[in-house]
């Protein structure tokens, strides 16, 4: 987990952050057709947003590690939560097994 977290994206230039190929692939996967002019604006805007993401937190590895040291997080926590959430018997009474499962899944997701 810590190894994954310390892996920061290291883009040498703005062009590498979101290339024209990245834009075309993302646009096609999103099934969105647009004019060349709009495409240019969209690419520029998305580049700026990605730059914001990079600058604001995702490249500040040290800060991230400090945060986690202060507030430890692990996949185990999530599992514990998922198991505990179904323990409210009142909430589950009268629901079918399928609905109970849905409820547990939703609750852990929205927790």
């Amino acid at each position, binding site marked *: 987990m810590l190894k994954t977290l310390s892996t920061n994206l290291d883009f040498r230039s703005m062009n590498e952050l979101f290339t024209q190929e990245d*834009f075309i692939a993302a646009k096609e996967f*999103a099934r*969105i057709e*647009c004019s060349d002019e709009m495409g240019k604006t969209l690419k520029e805007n998305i580049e700026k947003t990605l730059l*914001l993401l990079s600058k604001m937190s995702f490249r500040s590895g040290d800060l991230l590690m400090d945060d986690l040291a202060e507030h430890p997080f692990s996949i185990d926590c999530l599992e514990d939560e998922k198991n505990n959430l179904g323990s409210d018997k009142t909430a589950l009474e009268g629901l079918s097994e399928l*609905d109970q499962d849905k409820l547990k899944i939703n609750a852990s997701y929205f927790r």
Partner: protein
Amino acid sequence: MYHLCGHQIRRDLIEKKFSCKDLAEYFIKRAKSTNKKTGAFLHFTEQLAINQSKLIDEKIQKKLPLPPLAGIPISIKDNICISRYPLTCASKFLIDHIAPFSACCIKFLTEAGALIIGKTNLDEFAMGSSTEFSAFHSTKNPWDLSCSPGGSSGGSAASISSRACLLSLGSDTGGSIRQPASFNGILGLKPSSSKISRYGLVALAGSLDQIGPFASCAEDLALLYDAIAKPSDKDLLTLLSNHKSSHPFLKNSLKGKKIAVPWSFFESLNQDVKDNFSKMLNHLKGVGCEIYEIELHELAHSIAIYNVITSIEAFFNLAKFNGLVYGRRSKKGENLDELYSLSRGAGFGIEVKQRLILGSHLLCSQKGNHYIEKAQILRKTLASKFHQVFQQFDLIATPTTPSSAFKLKEVSEPNERYLQDLFTISANLTQSAAISIPSGFCKKGLPLGFHLIGNSSSEPLLLSFAFALEKITNSDKFIPKLFDMEIYDE
């Protein structure tokens, strides 16, 4: 009649000062007239309001008890379904769409006797913070028609500040109720998750979206919240929640309540907003609250986390709008892929396209995947920090927005727009309850908001703060000059 609060209207109905049908006709007429200036509404639901008013009048005639929102006119953001009425989400894609069913909250409102008078404008699919991204028209701020009313629930907020109606429902994914409430000098509540059923709300980002109420006074806000915050088998999450009525707690004493303020986060805030915020904290000290400074540097991550999470969740949620299942179908496509791309290309506006393409990039490229994992972990970190804070303090206070309402078309850079939600996003990311309370005006004469964030299920506490502050600021009397008069069609 427009200067009355909702609970006063209900009282006057019981005293037979006017009939409910007269009331419905008055507010529909006023809404249509004010709408020419503000553009707050997309459609009117006249017949719905008139039919409801007749039922209320019958109850009055028969001396039957009136439901809690009897006769109070309300508007609904146009991403919430009302059976047999248009549901456009302010998108050309859904221009012809008629909702086949009603949202749970609409059912609860009807049972509570509210008069639904119309559907309000929003940024397309609730993506935006200015209501300029509506495919139909921009909404104007009633305090200054050259300014934005905020967004995405800008139409809802403007419908109340222009007194076209007295209550409204909006949705809040990152601040879409609280920011427009602040820009319009009214109250806006984002409930904690699982309090209000989202069945019938067109989803933007499922893990962040909430339906929430707007009102011009705290008592009305509490009545509306209590009417819709109910368990529903259509949204299983609401069955898990403890639904406590907030109205009985409105007048509770605030003495000894502990308020945490992350002062270091406000360093670059403009002085006008900072002064206004300090004034509100002094009001709270005056009613016995204790104010403490805390460090909350995790807030700096919130916009980045929000951008990643909303983009990827919107990507999935809007996949159904493909011209085949929902939405206007392109006639040009020669195969299924072309049909999807051309329909979505013609139907969606630029902000929606931008977020969907970003979501697609984050999900489908190796570069993008890095962001998702980190966003999820940072979100958990933020929630953990909030949990710690709420073990020591009752609420966190911030200004609602970094500035007062901006001019229409003034903020064109997407990143600048996202900064509007700097103080509000964290409540969505952490599933907390939060409220924007009118806090007076900036030097330009535009309203400002005071933002309080509370733990899950803290709605009664937040509403008691709104009530106490309203008694000091008289914010329930804030009405823009341009609309503080009887307005009729010219």
